């Protein structure tokens, strides 16, 4: 066993998964979550959550909205590569795609578990409530998940050759590209359109007829930030090179979209006469200001500054702020903005509810690592560099080994 997990190399036959202490913890969290899922399926939704008629949607809804928004990394990257001709972004495309695929699988799992009569989940296939944003969401999100699973077959086929599959995949390549670019725009928007109907209940600081537009914009500009974090994290885990040139190019586009988003937000507040509430110093107004300031304005400025964005730490901080800004925005839409009208105070989740969110996140992390270590996700150069880093590490460990063995015999086996 190597000392360091490495991404899959062309030619490696056996399936591997390198367990580390952190991964053991993640596996434990996932195992407990599976038990909680069984508990939820047996006892219904009331037992493992603090949901009520006052709070029919809360933490899980936030997690779904957030998951889909962050998974926007996949479609925004694909859109830029295949339609806007950003060829260089291909270096990070597959990583973004895997994040996106897993994000959607997680959200679909959560969606089904959040249904009272989940075995009826196929009903929209024949009973069409076309006026509902949920209808749009249902079709687009499930179609897009299927599209992504099929897209994964391209990667799968490179690793496990399947006779005749390649021919089929080649033929459906272009339609898949188009579906993969169009569907996300619709369900991204639909997810926030859900709250348009909460007019009169959602606080005007977050309610707007433009909610669907805001949703698409935020999910688009957060994409590069997620890709940056994914790249920098895989740099730490695998020694994968950081594609700084690509990342800089990407976050510059983010910054542009963030600027338009901010302007549109302010215009929307102004047009609806909510600016006094925003700037009046009320608690909610300050929360909204903080969300826009720290979550959009600050990272936007950082992304615009050539000095900050080209430094690794600047890139990390700005990307983190961008992601947290979107996470906070979804939280405010789902929870903060609904507190007053709920008439039941701030939502206090059940510990199982929180654990469930953790468990889904842990599962996504583990599967991501498994896919990277067993499928061609990174470019050949990336893999070569990672392998070099790993063997260097191995050599360093081997050099240290004698002394280490000696101490362990002393300390570990006193007898």
């Amino acid at each position, binding site marked *: 066993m190597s000392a360091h997990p490495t991404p899959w190399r062309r030619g490696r036959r056996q399936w591997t998964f390198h367990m580390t202490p952190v991964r053991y913890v993640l596996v434990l969290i996932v195992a407990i979550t599976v038990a909680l899922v069984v508990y939820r399926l*047996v*006892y*219904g*939704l*009331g*037992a493992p959550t603090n*949901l*009520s*008629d*006052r709070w*029919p*949607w809360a933490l899980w809804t936030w997690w779904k909205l957030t998951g889909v928004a962050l998974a926007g990394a996949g479609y925004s990257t694909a859109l830029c590569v*295949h*339609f*806007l*001709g950003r060829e260089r972004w291909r270096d990070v495309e597959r990583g973004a795609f895997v994040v996106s695929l897993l994000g959607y699988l997680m959200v679909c799992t959560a969606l089904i578990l*959040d*249904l*009272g*009569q*989940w*075995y*009826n*989940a196929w*009903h*929209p296939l024949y*009973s069409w*409530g*076309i*006026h*509902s*944003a*949920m*209808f*749009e*969401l*249902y079709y687009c999100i499930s179609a897009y998940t299927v599209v992504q699973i099929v897209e994964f077959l391209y990667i799968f086929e490179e690793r496990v050759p399947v006779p005749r599959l390649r021919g089929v995949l080649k033929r459906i390549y*272009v339609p898949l590209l*188009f579906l993969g*670019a*169009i569907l996300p*725009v*619709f369900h991204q*928007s639909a997810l926030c*359109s*859900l709250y*348009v*109907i*909460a*007019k*009169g*209940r959602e606080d*005007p600081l977050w309610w707007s*007829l433009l909610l669907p537009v805001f949703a698409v914009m935020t999910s688009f500009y957060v994409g590069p930030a997620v890709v940056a974090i994914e790249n920098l994290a895989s740099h730490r885990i695998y020694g994968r090179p950081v594609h700084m040139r690509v990342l800089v190019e990407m976050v510059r586009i983010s910054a542009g979209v963030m600027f338009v988003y901010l302007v549109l937000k302010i215009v929307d507040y102004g*047009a*609806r*006469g*909510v600016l006094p509430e925003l700037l009046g110093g009320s608690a909610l107004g300050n929360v909204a200001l903080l969300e826009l300031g720290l979550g959009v304005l600050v990272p936007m400025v950082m992304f615009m500054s050539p000095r900050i964005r080209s430094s690794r730490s600047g890139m990390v901080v700005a990307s983190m702020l961008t992601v947290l800004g979107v996470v906070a925005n979804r939280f405010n839409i789902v929870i903060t903005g609904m507190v007053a*009208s709920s*008439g039941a105070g701030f939502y206090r989740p059940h510990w199982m509810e929180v654990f469930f969110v953790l468990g889904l996140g842990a599962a996504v992390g583990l599967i991501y690592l498994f896919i990277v270590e067993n499928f061609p996700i990174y470019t050949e150069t990336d893999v070569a560099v990672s392998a070099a880093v790993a063997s260097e590490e191995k050599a360093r460990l081997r050099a240290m080994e004698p002394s280490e063995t000696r101490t362990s015999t002393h300390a570990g086996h006193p007898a």
Partner: protein
Amino acid sequence: MSADPPFAETDGPEDGSSGSDGLSRRRFLGTLAIAAGAASIGTTFPPAHRRMTETIRELAEKHGNDPSLLIDLTKCVGCGACVMACKLDNHLEWREDQPAKGPDAALASSNWSVVQAEGRVGRDGESRYVKRQCMHCLEPSCASACFVKALRKSPEGPVLYDGNLCVGCRYCLMACPFSVPTFEWDKTFGRVDKCDFCFARTSKGEPSACAQACPVGAITFGHRASMLEEAWRRIGAEPQKYVPHVYGETEVGGTSMLYLSDVSFEKLGFRTGLPTDPIPSYEWKITRLIPSVAAGLGGTLVALYVRRRRLILEEEDAARTDEEVTA
């Protein structure tokens, strides 16, 4: 505003686009109406705040013959007979943890109707009681929100729920401006519950169980148009007693349930400041755009894709000719 509807004495944001603006104006007009009412008792009815938009008038006309309840809260004594009748008629459980009457009463899976005690809120220092149940909106947001059509507006009027179609997503709970639908949180396979306005009775023109049971005549059953007329007749007859507002006349486009009160509705826990536009119209403003947006987006993507392919091919051609030249 070119064509003033007959009722309209003032204008309002007909498209409902500017929510807060309309809100403050409505509140202002409400005060104005009360002031005017106090100054010239019973001279002009309906008062100024009965702002009828085109939509509300059309809806009121269309649903004039729908079954409707006029609930006069000044008459209610909080006995709970209506709640009892509701439970018996609809075979609902009596649960200790879900009180149907009193200060803690709340709509729940076993309570399709409740009588809430609102403490000493009356001008006379007396308690007031509020009977709550589904409002049966003329344009229900729950039905518009339901993506499997488990909730629908029946042609007869009541808003009905089909538990066999329902997937249990609870979007209706989010969508309802009155927080009426409830969910069976303690069931393995939770469904939604709400009042069906005793559809078996009311669709035949018979009064609902609650209306029939009321011993003090606080609940009147009839066609919506005549209930509205009756409501304004009562206000006109005793303007010093009633708040000059029929709750449910214009709220979210109008509801089948109409309330009269002598205490401001806000004090009684009613959600006030609701838009006068039917709420589904907001969502429909967005969902109806989908086909055109999809077409536009698709077209743009095709154009971008074709352009990119051409660029790639041109580059390849250039590379090939370069090779030939050097060869």
